[in-house]
């Protein structure tokens, strides 16, 4: 047993095995994402009662908060696999780190836009220089920097390693930005916005939120499988097993 798991992980590290694994996992992950998404959206948009303060506007929470969590979760995943890629030079870790970046950037973008759409009716402004919002914006710039650096290199594996290094620097940077903007806000004493006025959420609002959180997690797994599989095909273009796939899909 103790030997079996490392062996399986080792095998998974080989591109053809991972490709097949990703192809098998993806439909399941996508199915679960859709299932939890439908349940969560039905619960959030239809079943949950309107908020006593915010009316129906609070329903943006069911996509805003899961996206915000995902924007940080995906960054952590990117940092960890980037670290693995730098230390052990595993090709698959490079692929996972670099293919996570666009998904994370997408979730960060969603968070910023939905937060701004939520902020307009609630605080009367699209944007405020609060620590949370500024950190999220900085996170988007970090994602864009990582993607940009990755594509600036001619050699893709070298680009992946350089961008992984940048991602790790970013992990240190985000808490510093959060802290310094907090300090800055107390200095300027601007409009202090209480983002989450009531922390105790009734159960009928909480369970759709949890369902949506699960949905976004599964969505990330599915999207990562698709992206990583595609990227492996591009990296391994000269190998026989990729040629077979190319010929098999010629008719389609």
């Amino acid at each position, binding site marked *: 047993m103790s030997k079996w798991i490392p062996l399986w992980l080792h095998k998974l590290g080989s591109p053809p095995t991972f490709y097949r694994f990703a192809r098998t996992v993806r439909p399941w992950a996508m199915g679960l994402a859709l299932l939890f998404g439908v349940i969560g959206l039905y619960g959030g948009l239809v079943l949950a009662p309107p908020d006593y303060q915010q009316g129906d506007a609070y329903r943006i929470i069911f996509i805003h908060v899961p996206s915000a969590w995902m924007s940080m979760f995906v960054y952590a995943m990117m940092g960890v696999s980037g670290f693995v890629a730098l230390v052990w030079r595993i090709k698959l870790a490079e692929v996972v780190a670099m293919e996570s970046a666009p998904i994370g950037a997408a979730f960060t973008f969603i968070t910023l836009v939905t937060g701004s759409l939520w902020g307009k009716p609630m605080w009367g402004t699209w944007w405020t220089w609060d620590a949370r919002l500024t950190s999220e914006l*900085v996170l988007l*710039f970090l994602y864009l920097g990582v993607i940009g650096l990755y594509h600036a290199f001619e*050699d893709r594996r*070298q680009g992946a*390693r350089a961008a992984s290094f*940048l991602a790790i620097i970013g992990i240190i940077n985000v808490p510093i930005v959060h802290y*310094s*903007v907090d300090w800055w806000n107390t*200095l300027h004493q601007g409009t202090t916005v209480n983002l989450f006025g009531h922390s105790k959420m009734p159960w009928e609002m909480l369970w759709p939120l949890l369902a949506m959180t699960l949905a976004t997690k599964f969505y990330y797994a599915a999207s990562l499988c698709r992206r990583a599989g595609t990227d492996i095909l591009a990296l391994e273009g000269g190998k026989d097993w990729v040629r077979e796939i190319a010929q098999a899909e010629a008719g389609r």
Partner: protein
Amino acid sequence: MSAPLPQACAAMLRRDLTLAWRRRGDLAMPVLYAVIVAVLFPFALGPDLALLQRIAGGVVLVTVLLAMLLALDGMFASDIEDGSLEQLVLAPQPLALMLGMKILAHWITTALPLLVIAPLLAGMLHLPLPAMPALLLALLLATPLLSLLGAVLVALTAGTRRSGMLLALMLLPLCVPVVIFAAGAVAAAQEGLPWFAPVAWLSAALVLAVVLSPLACAAALRIALDA
């Protein structure tokens, strides 16, 4: 046979300063840029004294930062072109220390002239005199910090086609805290509040960066040049 460390460091510094001196026209570029930007602000906002006084510290800080960004791109450029950076990577002396010397030389040649004209720019924007020491001290701490942070990013892009835009995108998240604390010190001094805390934070960050940044820079360069 390798030279002892202090001599190697001195030779590195002397070489970079000599090279910079031979192209002193390039050195004037960031200074000229900062002057132009600072001069344009009053024209754009009007010569209202109170308004200019309020924004002077921030404008000078951002101007100096942008001028440094302009020069950052060229930190290792000529060394990559003539291959001396690869020689440096292979040299027996510790790479981090040598890169630290290069960063120091770069700071002396680009940031020091900016520091000299910063009081002039601040004076043109009517920064109140009591805030001037805070501004100078903040700049004195913030500019080496930016050089050190920028050097890591420049090293990361060493193997790529030159792209200043990418460098700016990568530097923005890193320089947000630096700008906040530097501008915070100036703002606090202007309002007559104690401005020791932000300066202390900047100094702490600078000490950390002096130790860590050359090491990170060396690691980044090894990644970017490893073919």
